[in-house]
């Protein structure tokens, strides 16, 4: 990597870190690119040479965070034990534990997922293949073990799980619900759906 590339990379890191903190402290809509540049100690122009828009900054902030989270999952998932429902409960509990550290940031991420952005490199919530893939593997393993009915369409269960997972964050937003409370609610939702997929 040349000096120039290294500088660019350093700017990028600083911008992402500043944006992550500002989005979470003051909110996504309220944060301007100017404020991000100021916090990062770089010029407004250099933010725009790296990112096309604020939406793209948000997407990359989340990408980076989720990258770290999913690296952790790669380590953890092989050691999950218990029924398919138990495994899913663990996976979502880890998500809640991680995302409730920066609730406002995650809410902005969900809000953005209803507003398509034409900029390249924007991955909204719901389009993250890693979460979908992880859930699919757990469900398919469940089928293989005879824990989940074989005529069960995993994609439909994934739809339902992801929808419930995201919506539960409202409790964190409105009532400052803790990760433990969110996980407890998600556990109930998973158990409810699991009653339908259990092999007869």
């Amino acid at each position, binding site marked *: 990597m040349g000096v120039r590339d290294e500088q660019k990379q350093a700017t990028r890191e600083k911008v992402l870190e500043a944006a992550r903190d500002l989005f979470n402290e003051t909110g996504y809509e309220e944060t301007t690119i100017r404020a991000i540049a100021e916090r990062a100690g770089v010029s407004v122009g250099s933010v725009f040479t790296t990112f096309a828009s604020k939406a793209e900054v948000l997407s990359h902030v989340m990408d980076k965070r989720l990258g770290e989270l999913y690296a952790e999952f790669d380590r953890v998932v092989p050691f999950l034990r218990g029924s398919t429902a138990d495994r899913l409960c663990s996976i979502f509990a880890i998500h809640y534990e991680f995302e409730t550290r920066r609730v406002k940031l995650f809410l902005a991420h969900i809000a953005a997922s*209803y507003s398509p952005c034409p900029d390249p490199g924007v991955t909204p919530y719901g389009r993250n293949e890693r979460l979908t893939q992880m859930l699919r593997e757990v469900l398919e393993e469940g089928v293989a073990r005879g824990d989940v009915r074989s005529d069960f369409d995993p994609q*439909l269960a994934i739809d339902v799980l992801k*929808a419930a997972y995201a919506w539960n964050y409202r409790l964190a937003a*409105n009532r400052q619900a803790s990760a433990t409370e969110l996980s407890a609610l998600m556990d109930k939702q998973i158990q409810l*759906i*699991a009653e339908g997929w259990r092999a007869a």
Partner: protein
Amino acid sequence: MSFVSLNIESPTDAPVKLTRRALAKQRTRERVLSAARRLFTERGYEGATIRDIAQAAGMSTGAVFASFSDKSELFDEILTADYEVIYAQMKQAGVNAATVEEGVIGMFAVAYGFHVEQLPLLQASIAVSWTRSETAERRNRGHLKHIFALLNGVLTRGVERGELKTDADVKLLAEIIWDVYVANYRRAIFDAWSVEALLSRLSDQLKVILAGARA
């Protein structure tokens, strides 16, 4: 809709004879609302300022503020008007249904049919609903209760008919159905799904959600 404001419990004003002044005021309100609806649809919630709205309505910013205290009140008023249009139809679909599936799909067919026609406004309302102030959110949650009452009714009648188990967790089922209904809008937004495609997916998802609760 739901994530929206509806003040259907607020007492309706007794009919009063409108003075010319009151009529003029009402016309101003309507002009502001129609300009605001157009701008929110074109630019989203954040993108439309009170100044833009006033300009589009052909009046001063001050005149807008004489009718509405702030932008969020204006936005809520538009969503409330929309909600009132579809609430009665959703209720009818829910109450008259012979099965849980017919009730749920009937209710959301009304909602999808209405909102898919004006997706940008819906997107703005969902985005705002995730990032609103606490006061706005409290008001919003009060409104959601009405939709949940309809959904709970559909499910409870399913229990009474022996379609669902007597110990089915109606409240939790209603929540999950709602979550999926809202999440599906992303398919309309990103993948241009039609109302029929959304309903067919919702119907499949509903089977998964209800499978364990069937008697």
